[in-house]
């Protein structure tokens, strides 16, 4: 019997027996998206021999985004295959960060060049909206995409646009178009103090003393205590306490440096890193020495491309000089998420995940990066460390005024003549800072200010003589946070400012907890109404403050609560009803 005959079945024709199931045709592939072999080759070419560790996912998404200016589903799938990562795990990370453009099958990729126009408050009052509109209608959208962006940390040169990675300060549509035409897209590295220059003027002598055992831990702690150096990322926690706490936990320990300076109005960290990065590095290495950290992860926001370049160069220089072992400082690049300035969110991001703040306790000092005790510091905090240990605690502490201790780097922007970073005593007042910034712009009258960026609430001119320091504004429902002072004048509408700030929080809320995710969204909707529902806003604010996981949701209502408290008589109560 031949094979062909046999297939008919010995028991007779077998056709009728097939009436089982729907008898539809089976899939030609296993379930879900299939791997594109060509894409896999391309991804492998980008990754080269880099380790396929999951914590490096964001770095590798950058490689794809940088090379192809977007992340196609085929590349993302190939990356998953290469990293042995589930698709959903990669997709949720790629879509969390705003600097990644994930393009699925059948979707149109964005054009090769993106212009980001900063929409945050300092730029907004300097005409960001009309700049954005003009650019949107003035460019070839097939070649260029124009999008609004949260604060890029150049509030002193507002308004600002970024073409590719090249910033246009004091931007006008014409100036931006000119840059577009020039074809230049990469950032320009400013002149800064190199390692050699820093060492030439005595840099790294403190670290050397530490390492040589000439500056024992206890001595350093005493100095730091006397200096009263506090965490200048916004929380103000005494730096030396952190060192003591982290050191008290069983090693191995890690250290992170938070360079995700995203608080609208803040640009002091960029200021230091574009001028004297090595002073920060020396501070970092002293801190790492103090807590015996095995490794430092430096998380730098993607909005600072020049700083990223500088840091890469200077880390290599440190390695080459033998000050650190290769790989001791690992530079990690953010990807457009304000929330990663929150330390536990930043740690999640370094681990290659979405920037979701963690529930506390445990605190990161005990369970931090990769589950280890972790010391985290802001850039400026570290910047002061070598200087304090060189010049002495007294030098630093004595700078404070009005009962405060130490020096602060104030990011002053808005309607002042000379916006910029002003190094001035803690405890200084807004009015004094305005004076130091050259006074109000011509024709502008001081009306209101943000003492601490978008989060710290808004205060009226009548409270312009309050000493500004951690805790000093508590009773006004306000705080200095990252010391970002944005100054407003009579032409600025407080309600508009508040809506701008809340839109920022809505865009930047990670979405993890209900009070913040839904609260920010509903707050914007309520604030955009003709009449503010004061009672409901206050109720909402209370829950956001009480029940949000992290500081973003807890502080987001400060703007509208303080606005209602201090500006009710002026506009909000009476004239709000008439708003369009």
């Amino acid at each position, binding site marked *: 019997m031949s094979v062909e005959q046999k297939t008919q079945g010995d028991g007779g024709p077998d056709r009728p027996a097939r009436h*089982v199931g729907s008898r539809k045709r089976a899939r030609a592939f296993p379930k*879900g998206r299939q791997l594109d072999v060509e894409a896999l080759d391309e991804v492998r070419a980008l990754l080269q021999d880099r380790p396929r560790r999951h914590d490096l996912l964001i770095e590798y998404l950058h490689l794809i985004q940088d090379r192809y200016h977007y992340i196609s589903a085929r590349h993302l799938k190939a990356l998953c295959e290469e990293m042995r990562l589930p*698709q959903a795990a990669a997709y*949720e990370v790629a879509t969390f960060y705003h600097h990644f453009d994930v393009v699925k099958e059948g979707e149109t990729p964005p054009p090769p060049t993106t212009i980001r126009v900063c929409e945050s408050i300092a730029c907004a009052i300097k005409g960001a909206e009309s700049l954005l509109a003009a650019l949107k209608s003035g460019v070839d959208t097939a070649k260029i995409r124009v999008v609004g962006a949260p604060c890029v940390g150049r509030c002193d040169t507002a308004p600002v646009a970024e073409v590719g990675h090249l910033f246009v300060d004091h931007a006008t549509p014409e100036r931006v178009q000119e840059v577009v035409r020039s074809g230049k897209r990469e950032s320009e590295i400013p002149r800064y103090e190199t390692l050699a220059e820093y060492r030439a003027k005595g840099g790294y002598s403190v670290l050397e003393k530490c390492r040589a055992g000439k500056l024992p831990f206890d001595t350093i702690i005493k100095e730091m205590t006397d200096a009263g150096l506090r965490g200048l990322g916004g929380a103000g926690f005494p730096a030396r306490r952190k060192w003591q706490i982290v050191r008290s936990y069983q090693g191995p320990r890690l250290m992170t440096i938070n360079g995700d300076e995203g608080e609208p109005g803040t640009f002091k960290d960029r200021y230091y890193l574009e001028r004297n990065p090595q002073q920060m590095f020396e501070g970092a290495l002293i801190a790492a020495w103090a807590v015996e950290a095995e490794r430092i992860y430096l998380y730098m926001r993607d909005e600072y491309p020049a700083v990223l370049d500088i840091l890469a160069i200077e880390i290599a220089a440190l390695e080459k000089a033998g000050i650190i072992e290769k790989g001791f400082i690992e530079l990690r690049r953010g990807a457009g998420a304000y929330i990663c300035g929150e330390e536990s969110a930043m740690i999640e991001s370094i681990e290659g995940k979405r920037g979701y703040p963690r529930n506390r306790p445990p605190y990161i000092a005990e369970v931090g990066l990769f589950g280890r005790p972790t010391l985290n510091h802001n850039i400026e905090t570290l910047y002061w460390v070598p200087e304090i240990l060189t010049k002495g605690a007294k030098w630093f502490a004595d700078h404070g005024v009005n009962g405060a201790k130490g020096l602060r780097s104030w990011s002053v922007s808005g309607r002042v003549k000379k916006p910029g970073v002003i190094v001035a005593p803690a405890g200084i007042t807004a009015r004094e800072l305005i004076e130091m910034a050259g006074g109000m712009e011509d024709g502008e009258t001081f009306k209101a200010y943000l003492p601490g960026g978008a989060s710290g609430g808004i205060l009226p001119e009548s409270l312009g003589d309050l000493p500004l320091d951690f805790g000093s504004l508590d009773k006004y429902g306000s705080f200095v946070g990252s010391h970002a002072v944005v100054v407003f004048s009579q032409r600025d509408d407080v309600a508009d400012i508040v809506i701008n700030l809340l839109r920022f929080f809505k865009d930047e809320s990670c979405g993890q907890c209900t009070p913040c995710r839904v609260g920010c969204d509903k707050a914007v909707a309520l604030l955009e109404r003709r009449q503010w529902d004061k009672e409901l806003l206050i109720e909402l604010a209370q829950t956001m403050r009480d*029940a949000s996981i992290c500081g973003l949701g807890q502080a987001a209502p400060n703007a509208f609560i303080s606005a209602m408290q201090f500006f009710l008589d002026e506009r909000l109560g009476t004239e709000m009803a008439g708003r369009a």
Partner: protein
Amino acid sequence: MTDQLLFTLDGKVVSARPGETIWQVAQREGNTIPHLCWLPEPGYRADGNCRACMVEIEGERVLAASCIRKPSPDMVVKTATDRAVKARRMVMELLIADQPPHEDSPDRVSPFWHWAEVQRIETSRFPAHGIIKPDLSHPAMAVNLDACIDCGLCVRACREVQVNDVIGMAFRGIEARPVFDFDDPMGRSTCVACGECVQACPTGALMPKSIVDPITQHGTREVDREVHSVCPYCGVGCQLSYQIKDEKIAFVQGRNGYSNENRLCVKGRFGFDYVSNPQRLMKPLIRKPGLPKGINVDPANPYTHFREASWREALDFAAKGLVKVAEQHGNEAIAGFGSAKCSNEEAYLFQKLIRTRFRNNNVDHCTRLCHASSVAALIEGIGSGAVTATFNEVEHADVVMIIGANPTENHPVAATFFKQAAKRGAKLIVIDPRGQAMREYATYMLQFKPASDVALLNAIMHVIVEEGLYDVQYLQAFTENFESLKKHVASYSPESVAATTGIDAKTIREVARTFGRAERALIFWGMGISQHVHGTDNARCLIALSLMCGQVGRSGTGLHPLRGQNNVQGASDAGLIPMFYPDYADVKSDAVHNKFEQLWKTPLSEKPGLTVVEIINAAVSGDIRGMFIQGENPAMSDPDLDHARAGLAKLEHMVVQDIFLTETAMMADVILPSSAWPEKSGTVTNTNRQVQMGRKALPLPGDTREDLWILVELAKHLGLGWTYTHPSEVFAEMKLAMPSLDNITWERLERESSVIYPCPAPDQPGEAVVFGDGFPTQTGRALLVPADVLPPGEVPDDEYPLVLMTGRQLEHWHTGAMTRRANVLDALEPGPTVSLHPRELARHGIKPGELVRVTTRRGAIELTARADRAVQEGTIFIPFAYVEAAANILTNPQLDPIGKIPEYKYCAVKIGPAHGDEPHVPEFDIPVIASGL
């Protein structure tokens, strides 16, 4: 009470156990704090994101999520302060703003609406968002994200509990939402439809489609009643709860059984509507005279070949036919196939019927086709055929070897525990010719050449010997024959087998060291080990490997052949084996023989009976002429089907007891329509040795009868004076024959649902791990049996250049009799496929999705080509559930000499274009997303 700490909760000093959260203590104290993202069920970690459970802690600036916050000594917690109550209510109000109205909800009785009602929040003062369209792309589940509250329970369900890793929480802020893969429609994603997300979802955003209106998407989980039972599919033995409305299974929930901890897979959750498939046999059927027997009857219309009969007539006809054969050709001409899909009680009665009425031992079942070789090797080596440790012991293992098994498809819920172990840090060694899903979690994935198991395992043992990684003390205390094994493996250096196995020597050494240095190692294996002509040798190697490293008898160690069917362990225990009476009592032993003659009060045969394939061969040769087949489908499951079907067709009298007109039933002389699993009660024993209670949930349809009733009535017609009226009576008798059931009673099983055997006392749990102090062999020691490399029964050549492997797939159970009649399972895998590597396809000039013809020396079938990178080049894979392209037409019936198991996993095959005689079939309606190829 050093471990406990004291704190104040609502003014009362309470104690917290280590690890307990405020929520848990409060609940223990009688105060259930509202909760949404917290699911107090095994496997779910608290996430603290919804903030519905906020409480006030004295001295803290902000409120705390009670679900995740652990109390510290002397903490003062207040759950009912104005601030806490307001925050909890505001969270609900914020969420309700964007929900569909309660009456329009996909789940009107969801936990979400429960907590809204408890807190008396019906509406929201906040403006609502736009409507989100439902995703109805999946046949089993409806996705209505407008009811989603982003609590992430579905993500934890998919990622952490079942570790299927399909759902993520993508995008940011208010845009955040659960997505499947890259935000794909659920039905086009890699979703394996375990339904864990559906079971976890607190809002109805993810629902079984069966209880949601297809148009309005309004639905409810409200049911009339529920019945606790156990899943009828694989050997994992998941406990489940039928949710019954209007006397139908509305949906199925997992229950917290030892082997499943609430988890289910697609079959156990969505595969139950086969019971009401229109093809159910409702009346006894007697064959019309003069029609040829074959695979030639439409299962929807048996009346072309059969006529209806009364039960009385059918039973009489069935009995008389068997008696006639026995009278004319002798008792030896009768054989019976029982079923691993029936209960222990039914299996016991089935073998008792054949043995006592026909005085022969020609009774077998599908264990012969799956683990007969494993059992043979285990009994030879350690004196027991069951697993030495439950698969849940994987929790305690630091090295886990999975070889010749594809648990994500065939033991999906067990696989979730393996994946969790790997995520926890256990090293997973996966050895399989196919690069299965488990590879993503494996430390080592050895995609070796098919049938080179013995060479590979000997080489691993070689390294362990060479590097002294074996456990001298253990070997001395508990084993024998190590010296000869040692000598034997000396010639199997990793270098010498690298070419045979396709695995480089360095990798073999690393794997050997990993296993050899393990503190606690477990070995799992499946049919890739057993279904070979050298299946027994394969298993011997695994047993030797485990024993030489002392990896048996402690927690986290052991040998675990993953049993296939829901009751294959139980049916074997109950004696559905030709050489054993219940509890593996040797039919040749006089003592055993006397015991059972006394118990059953009848003379018995001391001659071992024929095995499955031998019975079929005997049918072909005319030595077997009458058969009673209960719930088995040899016309699909046996190797070389044309031969097997011819044998069945040749029988003078065949009695089939089944729920559908299976391919076997088509050739019956009389068909007795029986009960589906949810329509009867009985116990089953899973791969873990758990004896579990299955409970009747549905009324019998039409004129069908419970299987036990049919067996008893048939026995009566055969002249056996049986009087059993309830499975509990059978169970009581089984206990007389089976010491393994000591301390396990029907009443206990009714009460506890599940007890592991062996069980030391009526009030103690059974033993998860056995043989910590020796083995039930004559010497008390385990025997290490060296094995040599034997070639497969048929190797590729120029004419048949590829290797065919057969097996199962996630959606289809065995021969497809049940699953292909379950709508969801059919929709997911509606037709037969042959899987090949894309490069192999390209070499043959075949495009994915094309019809192809697959031919072996035994036959040919035509089916759809599937491009699957997991299949290694040079091999093809075909699942055997599809009658229209039955894989077993192709397979080689050559048997393992000891286990008598056929070589389903290896034969020579060729592939080419279809001849085009395939009837036109509609296109598949769930297209895949193919970004490449």
